[in-house]
């Protein structure tokens, strides 16, 4: 049972005079077994929220708290946060030349579990998860994210989530750039984790499309650095029909696709 609590979180980017406040007081609680959709227009600060929770050095926390089961997340290093049970599927996964996927996955699993996973079961787990995500086995020998298509990158992110079994997973626009098949495959991966019960999901998206595959328990509308409205799945339907225009003055943004 994990609880991620975000209270009045303020975050800025840039230094000195260039500093710009992006998050302006975010409040959010995600528990194991719950799926929260965060929906908002481009530039509203969704990725900033995700990166801030994960500890990206580019972002400066200027106020508020983030705790995981009462522990101060903001005091932890990036790797400590992951070992505490947080996972971020990135909107733009990073290429790491010369590091193979299999080496990377095994190093990460060893770090998270505190000991090297038993080779036999590990190889089997990786293989079966890759099969379920319809990834070619040759994938494991490629360098991390290098030359991956958009869809391959996102499958690779979900593969990591499946293998590392986090308490709370933040999925930052995992749906963007995916065709219908890939969207279904990736969503099924997320749903397998949800069915196993113990995961809390923070599903960040610009569009309502993925919510047809992954049913959220809660929907939060995110505009200009904070949550402006909250509700159940019906809120997503409203966004599908009306877009973000009601929340963003003069915006032409449409949520449905």
């Amino acid at each position, binding site marked *: 049972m994990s609880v991620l609590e975000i209270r009045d979180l303020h975050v800025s980017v840039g230094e000195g005079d260039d500093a710009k406040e992006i998050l302006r007081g975010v409040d959010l609680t995600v528990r194991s077994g719950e799926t929260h959709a965060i929906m908002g227009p481009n530039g509203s600060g969704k990725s900033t929220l995700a990166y*801030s929770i*994960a*500890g*990206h*050095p*580019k*972002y*400066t*926390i200027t106020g508020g708290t983030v705790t995981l089961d009462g522990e101060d997340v903001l005091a*932890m*290093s*990036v*790797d400590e*946060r*992951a*070992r505490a049970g947080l*996972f*971020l599927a*990135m909107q733009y*996964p*990073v*290429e*790491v*030349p*010369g*590091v193979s996927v299999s*080496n*990377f996955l095994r*190093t*990460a699993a060893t*770090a*998270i579990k505190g000991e090297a996973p038993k080779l036999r079961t590990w190889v089997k787990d990786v293989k079966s998860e890759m099969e379920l995500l319809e990834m070619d086995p040759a994938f494991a020998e490629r*360098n*991390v994210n290098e030359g991956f298509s958009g869809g391959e990158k996102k499958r690779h992110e979900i593969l*990591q989530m499946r293998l*590392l079994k986090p308490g709370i997973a933040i999925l930052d626009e995992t749906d963007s750039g995916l065709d219908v098949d890939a969207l279904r495959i990736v969503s099924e991966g997320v749903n397998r984790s949800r069915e196993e019960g113990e995961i809390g999901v923070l599903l960040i998206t610009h569009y309502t499309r993925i919510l047809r595959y992954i049913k959220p328990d809660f929907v939060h509308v995110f505009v200009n650095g904070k949550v402006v409205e909250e509700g159940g799945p019906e809120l997503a339907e409203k966004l599908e029909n009306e877009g973000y225009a009601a929340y963003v003055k003069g915006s032409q943004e449409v949520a449905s696709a």
Partner: protein
Amino acid sequence: MSASDNPTTTGLTTESAVLAGELFGDGVGTQAGPPATPAEGTGVAPGAHSHGGPAPTGSPAERFTSTDPDAFGVPTGREETWRFTPMKRIKPLLDGAESDAHLTWTTDLPEGVELTSVEAGDPLLKGLPEPVDRLAALARQRSGGAAVVRVAKEAQLDRPVTLGLAGTGSDEVVWGQLVVEVGAFAKATVVLDHTGLARYAGGVTVLVGDGAQVSLVSVQDWAPGAVHGGQYDAVVGRDATFKQVVVTLGGDLVRLVSNVQYAGPGGSAELFGVYFSDETQHQEHRLWVDHAVPNCTSNVLYKGALQGEGARTVWIGDVRIRPAATGTETYELNRNLVLTDGARADSVPNLEIETGEIVGAGHASATGRFDDEQLFYLCSRGIDAETARRLVVRGFFTDVVQHIGIDALQDRLMATIDDRLGALPALDDQPVEVA
């Protein structure tokens, strides 16, 4: 335009070179070099030779070349080609004292390979691309003849040709010239494995027959104190493939000049390099890829890491696309990872394009510290910062080393690199900052 057309020299369109630099320049620390000024046209085209290998290109060579050391004068260190080199440390080679000193050779020659030698004045030597600087001319002259590795046409070797070249610790300069002649449609990998302590000036010429596939691996795993200068030339035949992997790890000073020319259309050259400079080591790699015939490709990837006070690397990447070289595709990339303060990497890519009818041309150069995004990505999966850095640096090297294609050699080189990284105290001093 056909391969036999004899292109005339035109004014270099240096604007397009600069433009290409802007178009393709990549990221932080990108640096496009000034267009090279060719020496006045005293150069000569590589001549024909009588061994049935590639034919001469007949193209003009603006870069000054000569077999006569004195034609270059004695470098002062202010010349473009010498300005990065520590002249005091290379002086023993440039002094040019005659000597009979040798490296100790340990050879592994698979079936289909012949190792012989030729005397000075042999027609084979007359046909080689000429030296481009005084040191290379000295090596050509002082070595007197050449060792020749011949791979019969259509031979498919069952393992690499390995020449272990070990320094004996003598102060005397070793002069050497090696010719690797690979017949048409043969497939061969040749490994030059330099170890031990030596003062060595060695020329290496690879003649790649039509349709042949040749890999040349040159490992500079010298003992501390070694000085090594050398000119590497490849003449790539019609539809042939040439790959060169240069790995420079040891020695006090290593300065290698690698040139590629194409003897016919359809050739492909890949030049890979990896270097790791520790305290006070000077490692200089200068490349010159000369596209003078149509439909050839070149791809250059050099990566280096530096650590410790006075670690110094120089990478110069010249690519020229001459008017006749339509359909050329070329890309060159140099990346340097500066692991500690007090180290300096120079990187000068230079692309000169004299025809618009090319498939693509680009270059990029970046020198910097660890990539924060890569470290963040690894750490966000629970991997501690120290391990993440090791993975990134190891991966940085593996990326190039894996092109060697010989597992045992790759493992040995990666183990050497691991040892060197192990002695990296500064890693602990560079925490990933958490906001």
